[in-house]
C-alpha cells in the first residue's frame, strides 16, 4: 500500500520559502513560551517540527496559523511581512492547519464535513442553495485521489477510522487551496497501518507543491517523510538539519535536551 521510498523534494531547497518566521518570541505574562524561533517552509517540502511535550510546538504553530500574535519577531509570507489577526486571515492567505481535533463532526456526512463553512452554492438571491450534488462529487473525487474509497458521500465521518478522518481533513485543506499545510501531531493516536497511510498522504500533498509542516514527537514518523528537521526545546530552536545529515539518535537526543536521555536509553537498552 505505502510506497516506502518517498520522493523527497530535492528541487525544493532552491525555491524561496512560502512562509518564513524570524526570531519569533511569544510571552504569556511572565512566561516565555517561545524565545526566538526561526523556521521556514518551502513549496513541495515536508519540514518536520520536533519537540518534546512543553517544548513550545503548539504555541509556535498557533502563532503561524494566526491564533496567537507573536510578541516579537516577524512573519514573512511569500517574501512580504504579514500580520494575521485571526485564523481566518491565515486560512485565506493559504496557511491551513489541521489541528488534533480535526474540526470534524462525527454525526455529519463526509461531504457535509468537507464543505463545512464553505459550502458551494447554486442559484441566486432567495434561491441560493447548497449545491449538494457538486459537494458530493468533489468529495468523492478528492477522497479517491487520497486513496480512500468511501461507501458514499453521505457516509458519516463517525464511521471512518482515525487515519481516514485525518486524510479527510488534509484533503479538505488541500482542496481549499492551502499553500502551506500545518499538521499537528497527525500520527500520534494512530496504529501502524493508519500511520503509514497518513504519511503516504503527506507525500502526495508534498508532490503537489504544497509546503507541509509536520509536527511530531515521534522521530521515526518524522524521518519517514521529512526533508528537513527542526528541533524545538524549551522555546528555542536547536537548529535545522537536512535529511541524511542527522541520525535518529541525534534527533532524539536533541529533543530530550541531551544527557538524561542518554542515561535512560542506557538502562532501557535502545532508542525510545
Amino acid at each position, binding site marked *: 500500500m505505502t510506497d516506502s521510498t518517498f520522493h523527497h523534494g530535492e528541487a525544493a531547497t532552491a525555491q524561496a520559502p512560502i512562509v518564513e518566521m524570524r526570531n519569533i518570541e511569544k510571552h504569556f505574562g511572565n512566561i516565555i513560551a517561545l524565545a526566538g524561533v526561526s523556521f521556514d517552509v518551502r513549496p513541495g517540502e515536508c519540514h518536520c517540527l520536533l519537540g518534546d511535550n512543553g517544548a513550545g510546538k503548539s504555541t509556535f504553530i498557533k502563532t503561524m496559523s494566526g491564533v496567537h500574535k507573536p510578541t516579537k519577531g516577524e512573519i514573512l509570507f511569500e517574501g512580504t511581512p504579514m500580520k494575521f489577526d485571526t*485564523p*481566518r486571515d491565515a*486560512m485565506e492567505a493559504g496557511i491551513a492547519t489541521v*489541528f488534533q*481535533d*480535526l*474540526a*470534524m*463532526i*462525527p*454525526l*455529519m456526512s463526509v461531504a*457535509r464535513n468537507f*464543505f*463545512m*463553512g*464553505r*459550502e458551494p*452554492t447554486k442559484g441566486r438571491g432567495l434561491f*441560493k*442553495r*447548497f449545491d*449538494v450534488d457538486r459537494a458530493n462529487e468533489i468529495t*468523492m473525487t478528492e477522497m*479517491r485521489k487520497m486513496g480512500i*474509497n468511501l*461507501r*458514499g458521500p*453521505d457516509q*458519516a465521518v*463517525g*464511521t*471512518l477510522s482515525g487515519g481516514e478522518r485525518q486524510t479527510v481533513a488534509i484533503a479538505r485543506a488541500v482542496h481549499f487551496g492551502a499553500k502551506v499545510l500545518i499538521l499537528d501531531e497527525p500520527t500520534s493516536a494512530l496504529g501502524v497501518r493508519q500511520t503509514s497511510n497518513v504519511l503516504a498522504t503527506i507525500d502526495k500533498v508534498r508532490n503537489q507543491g504544497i509546503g507541509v509542516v509536520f509536527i511530531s514527537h515521534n522521530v521515526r514518523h518524522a524521518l519517514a517523510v521529512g526533508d528537513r528537521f527542526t528541533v524545538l526545546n524549551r522555546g528555542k530552536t536547536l537548529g535545522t538539519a537536512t535529511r541524511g545529515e542527522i541520525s535518529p539518535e541525534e534527533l532524539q537526543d536533541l529533543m530530550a535536551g541531551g544527557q538524561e536521555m542518554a542515561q535512560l536509553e542506557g538502562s532501557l537498552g535502545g532508542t525510545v
Partner: protein
Amino acid sequence: MNASDGALEDERVKAESFLSRLMRRPELGAIAGVILVVIFFAITADGSMFTLSGFMNFMSPASQLGILAIGAAMLMIGGEFDLSIGSMVAFAGLFFAICAVNWGLPLVVTIPLTFVFAACVGAVNGTIVIRSGLPSFIVTLAFLFILRGLSLVGLKWATGGSTQLRGVREATEGDILTPFFSGDAFPGLFARLAEMGLVETFGNGAPKVPGIPVEILWFVVIAALATYVLLRTPAGNWIFAAGGDTNAASNSGVPVARVKVSLFMLTAACAALVAIITVIDAGSTDARRGFQKEFEAIIAAVIGGCLLTGGYGSAIGAFFGAIIFGMVVIGLTYTNFDQDWFQVFLGAMLLIAVLFNNAIRKRVTGER
C-alpha cells in the same frame, strides 16, 4: 456506487442494504410511530376518526403544536434548547392582543410587530446563552418563569385587573389579513366538492368540513421550508455543524454565534405565529396560553428523531412527531379509553423514541 473502478473497491466495505440505508434517516422513527398509532386507532377507535372531518380534528391541534415543534427541532439540531416557548406563546399573545385591542392597530401593523417583538425576546435569550456560555436549559428555564409572570402582570395592567383580554375577535373581524391566520382556507373548493358529492355533507348540502384550517397550511409550509433550509442551504449545514461540535464548526469558519441566536429568534417567531393563530381563533388571550407547550414541542421533536445532544434530527421528523401527538390527544376521545391515558401514552412514546434514537445514533456514527 462506483462499480466502474473495481480496483479501488475496499473488500471490507459491505454493500448496504436498502433497509440499513433507511435506518440512517432521522425521521424513520417518527414515520414508524405514525404507522403504529394509525394501526392502534384503526383497531380501537370509532371509524369516524379517519374521515375527513376526523382528520381535520386531530390535524388542527397537531399543527399548532407542530409549528412550535419544528422551531424547537431546528434549535435542538443547532445544539440548544428553548424551554420558554410555551411562555413565549402567552407573552406574544398578550402583545398581539394589546396592539390589536387596546391600541386598535390594524393587523398589517400588529402582526409584523408581534413577530419582531418575539424575535427580540428570542435574541435576548440567545445572546445570554452565547455570551455566558451557560447551558441554554437553565437560561431558558429562567425565561419560562419570567415570560409567564410578565404575561400575567401585563394582562392585569392592560385590562385593569382581569386575567383575560377579550375583544380580539371584534378587533380583527373584517381585517384583510384575518383569513390568513384564522378560519378555514379554500371554502369555495370544499363547497364545490360537496356539490359534486365528493365530501361528506350535512343534511342541507353544506360540507361537513368547510375548508382546511389555516394552521394546517402554515404547518405544512413551515415543515417544507425548514426541511429545505436544513438539507439544501449552507445555513442548514451550519445548523448541523453548530449543534454537532461548536468548536469544530467555528474553526471551520461557521458563524456559530450568529446561527444560534438566529435559531432562538426563529423559535420565538414560531411561538408568536401560534399565539397569533390561537388568539384570533379564541377571540381573547389569557396568561395560561401555551402552558407546557415547550415540553410537548420538545417531545415531538425527539419523537421526530432529534438528539438531545444536538447535531442530528430533521424537520420532517418533528412534523410527524406532532401528528402523532395530535392523533393521540384527539384519538383517545374516539375510543372507549379514559382520556387521561393520554399522558401515560405520551411518556411511553418519548421513552421509546429516545431509546430508539440512541440505538440509531450508534449505528450512524459507527460507535461500538
